[in-house]
């Protein structure tokens, strides 16, 4: 199935069909939200659901006075700076010593032909230096990633799709995932966070997809804990009664690639606090 889609994508590209470019996709995405919520400035979408929910916004501001993720930030900084057994540190694995680089993730690595997320590279760094990989959804990796995001606050997401058919295929695969209905409830990501953003599901207001990836990892009150973007993907998939796919597996990384591209140009403001 997947192969067939790839071939189709490839064929379409070669045939030069009127295929929407990622940039067309992104512009259409923003226009959609501007039409739907005319009073909300595009830049405000970095605040997630709080951009479209005034009462909740105030409560969130109260929490932000001393957000619960600050504990994780302290832990993350410590972990980030503590050398591995071989004396090297995370800083040795990343450009600019890992500081202020979150806005460039995820990126397409033309060498390995796959999408690299910051969490994936944190673990690659560990393994390269003889350390055991961390679990991807929560705990130390969320703390380290939170710290790295924090050092990048205010920088604008700059996701690049290089001139490489594999990169385009990864983007398209992420897009396909985003718009495909899944699970027993037969909902796609877009059904909730695009077409029903702002509507209530039981007691919750559905957050808009625009700006979603700017504030991860997040401290969620529901978790009483920090979690990575893929932990949230996992939760969303479960909510529509689909079996979640592996964190940092190809599908979720491609999904992150697409979703983050849609928020290109928006400021990194992670880590975030959410209910």
């Amino acid at each position, binding site marked *: 199935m997947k192969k067939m889609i790839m071939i189709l994508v490839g064929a379409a590209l070669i045939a030069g069909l009127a295929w929407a470019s990622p940039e067309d996709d992104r512009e259409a995405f923003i226009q959609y939200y501007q039409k739907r919520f005319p009073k909300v400035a595009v830049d405000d979408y970095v605040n997630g659901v709080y951009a479209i929910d005034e009462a909740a916004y105030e409560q969130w501001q109260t929490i932000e*006075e*001393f957000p*619960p993720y*600050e*504990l994780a930030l*302290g832990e993350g900084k*410590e972990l980030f700076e503590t050398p591995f057994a071989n004396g090297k540190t995370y800083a040795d694995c990343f450009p600019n010593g890992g500081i202020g680089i979150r806005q460039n993730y995820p990126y397409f690595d033309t060498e390995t032909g796959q999408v690299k997320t910051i969490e994936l590279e944190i673990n690659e760094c560990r393994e390269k230096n003889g350390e055991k990989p961390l679990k991807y959804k929560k705990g130390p990796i969320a703390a380290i990633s939170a710290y790295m995001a924090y050092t990048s606050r205010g920088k604008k997401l700059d996701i690049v799709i290089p001139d490489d058919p594999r990169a385009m295929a990864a983007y398209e695969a992420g897009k396909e995932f985003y718009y495909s209905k899944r699970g027993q409830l037969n909902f796609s990501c877009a059904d909730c966070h695009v077409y029903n953003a702002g509507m209530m599901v039981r007691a919750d207001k559905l957050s808009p997809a625009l700006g979603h990836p700017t504030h991860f990892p997040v401290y969620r009150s529901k978790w*009483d804990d920090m979690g990575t973007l893929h932990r949230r993907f996992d939760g969303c998939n479960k909510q529509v009664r689909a079996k979640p796919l592996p964190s940092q597996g190809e599908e979720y990384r491609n999904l992150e690639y697409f979703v983050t591209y849609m928020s290109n140009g928006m400021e990194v403001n992670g880590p975030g606090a959410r209910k």
Partner: protein
Amino acid sequence: MASGIRMKAKLKGDTAEVKTLMKHEMETGTRKDKKTGETIPAHYITEVKAELNGKVVMTANFGPAVSKNPYFAFNVSGAKAGDTLTVNWVDNEGKSASEELTLS
């Protein structure tokens, strides 16, 4: 940070506005372990003391209804730059932690 207490303070005139966040589970004693089905014993901070230059200015008594990783903010008058502000907590198991900062 090893104490698991984060503190922030701002001096406005002679008033210090202090905010603290304390890492603690705050177990209510009514939750059940999902795997074993056993009740998780209550474990929560009972008392937080705030001291200015070694003198107690405020004591907060907590029950298990205070949220996980408790937040506690308060204001102290008669403070000036260079003063030492200390916050320490004790929990129902007798564990404790302490953190201090110098006002500036």
